[in-house]
C-alpha cells in the first residue's frame, strides 16, 4: 500500500520534470529558462531524497544537502549578470 | 550601541550565532558523540567570531522568551499562509482558463532590522501569488497575481499583515 503510493509519487515527479524540460525547450526568454532550471534543482533534491529512502542509504542525503545549499548560487549569478551587477 | 566598557568584549550576536552554527553542525552530523560536538563547537566559535565582527546582519539578533514566543507564532502563521496560498495557486493552475489579473503594487513595511526585513521578504516570496520585485527604503514592490487593490495601506494589510506583527516583535 505505502510502497504503491510512493511509486505513484515518483511518477508524478517524473511528469513534473518532463514539464519543466518542456518549458526549457519552449522558453521565450532567458528568464523563463532560468526559472525552469531553478524549479528543476528543487525537483532533483526531492528525487535524491526519495532515492535515499529507496536505497536505504543515509549518506545520499548529503548530496541533497549540497544541492539545497548551493543550487541557488547559479540562479543568483545569472540574475546578477542580467541586471549588469556582476 | 552599548556604552564602551573596558576589557575584551565579544561582538553582539556572537553567542546566538555560535549556538545556531553548533546546532547546524550537530544536525548535519546527526550524532552526539563528544569529540564531534567539541570540534563543532570550536569551529563554530571561530566562524561566529569572524562573521559577527565583520557583518552587521547578525548584530541585532537577540534572544528573549517573548521573542521566541513571537517567532514560534510567526512560524505557525507562515505555515498556514503557505499552505493556503499554494492551494489557491493550484486552483489557478488547474482551471481550464487561467483567470488572473497580475500587477505590481507598492506596500510599506515598518520593520527596521535586516534580519526582520529579510524574513518578511522571504515569507512574502514563499507564499505563491506574491513576489517581492524590488525593495527601496521602506517600500516593497510586489508582483501580485490577483490584484485586489492598488491602495498602499490596504495592500500592506492584505499581503504583509499576517507576518509583520510577529516579525516586528521577534526581530525588531
Amino acid at each position: 500500500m505505502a510502497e504503491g503510493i510512493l511509486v505513484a509519487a515518483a511518477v508524478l515527479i517524473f511528469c513534473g520534470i518532463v514539464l519543466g524540460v518542456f518549458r526549457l525547450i519552449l522558453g521565450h526568454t532567458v528568464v523563463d529558462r532560468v526559472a525552469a532550471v531553478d524549479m528543476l534543482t528543487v525537483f532533483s533534491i526531492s528525487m535524491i531524497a526519495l532515492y535515499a529512502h529507496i536505497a536505504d542509504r543515509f549518506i545520499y542525503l548529503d548530496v541533497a544537502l549540497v544541492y539545497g545549499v548551493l543550487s541557488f548560487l547559479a540562479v543568483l549569478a545569472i540574475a546578477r549578470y542580467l541586471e549588469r551587477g556582476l | 550601541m552599548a556604552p564602551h566598557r573596558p576589557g575584551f568584549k565579544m561582538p553582539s550576536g556572537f553567542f546566538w550565532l555560535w549556538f545556531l552554527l553548533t546546532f547546524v553542525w550537530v544536525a548535519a552530523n546527526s550524532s552526539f558523540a563528544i569529540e564531534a560536538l567539541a570540534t563543532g563547537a570550536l569551529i563554530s566559535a571561530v566562524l561566529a567570531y569572524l562573521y559577527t565582527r565583520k557583518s552587521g546582519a547578525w548584530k541585532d539578533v537577540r534572544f528573549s522568551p517573548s521573542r521566541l514566543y513571537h517567532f514560534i507564532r510567526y512560524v505557525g502563521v507562515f505555515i498556514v499562509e503557505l499552505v493556503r496560498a499554494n492551494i489557491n495557486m493550484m486552483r489557478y493552475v488547474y482551471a481550464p482558463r487561467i483567470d488572473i489579473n497580475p500587477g505590481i503594487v507598492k506596500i510599506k513595511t515598518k520593520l527596521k532590522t535586516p534580519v526582520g526585513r529579510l524574513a518578511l521578504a522571504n515569507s512574502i516570496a514563499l507564499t505563491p501569488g506574491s513576489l517581492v520585485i524590488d525593495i527601496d527604503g521602506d517600500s516593497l514592490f510586489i508582483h501580485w497575481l490577483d490584484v485586489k487593490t492598488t491602495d498602499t495601506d490596504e495592500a500592506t494589510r492584505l499581503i504583509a499583515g499576517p507576518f509583520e506583527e510577529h516579525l516586528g516583535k521577534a526581530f525588531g
Partner: protein
Amino acid sequence: MAELIGSILVLLGAIFHFSAGLGMLRMPDAYTRMQAGTKASTLGNTLILLGLGFYHPEWSLKLLIIICFVLMTNPVSSHALARAAHMIRIPMTRRTTVDALRATRQRRRSGK
C-alpha cells in the same frame, strides 16, 4: 501507520511538484511562471522530506536542515531573478493591471 502517513505526505508533495511543472508550462508570462514554478515546488519539497522523516525518524534532523536551507535560499534567488527580469524589461502579460514600480521609477527620473 507512520509509513502510511509518510507516503501520503510524499504523494501530496509530488502533486505540488506536478502542479508546479504545469504552472510553469501554462502561465502567460515570466513573472507568473516564476510564481507558479518556484514556490509550489518549495512546498512540495518540504512535504516530501517531511514524509520521508516519518519513514526514518533517525534521519529527521538532517531532513530538517535541508528543509530550512531550501526555505531560506529559494526565495532569495527567485527575488533576484524577478528583479533582474523587471530591470531588463521582460514583457509582462497583457492582462497586467498596474505597474507601480515602473511608475515610481519614471516619476523619479522626470522629477530629477
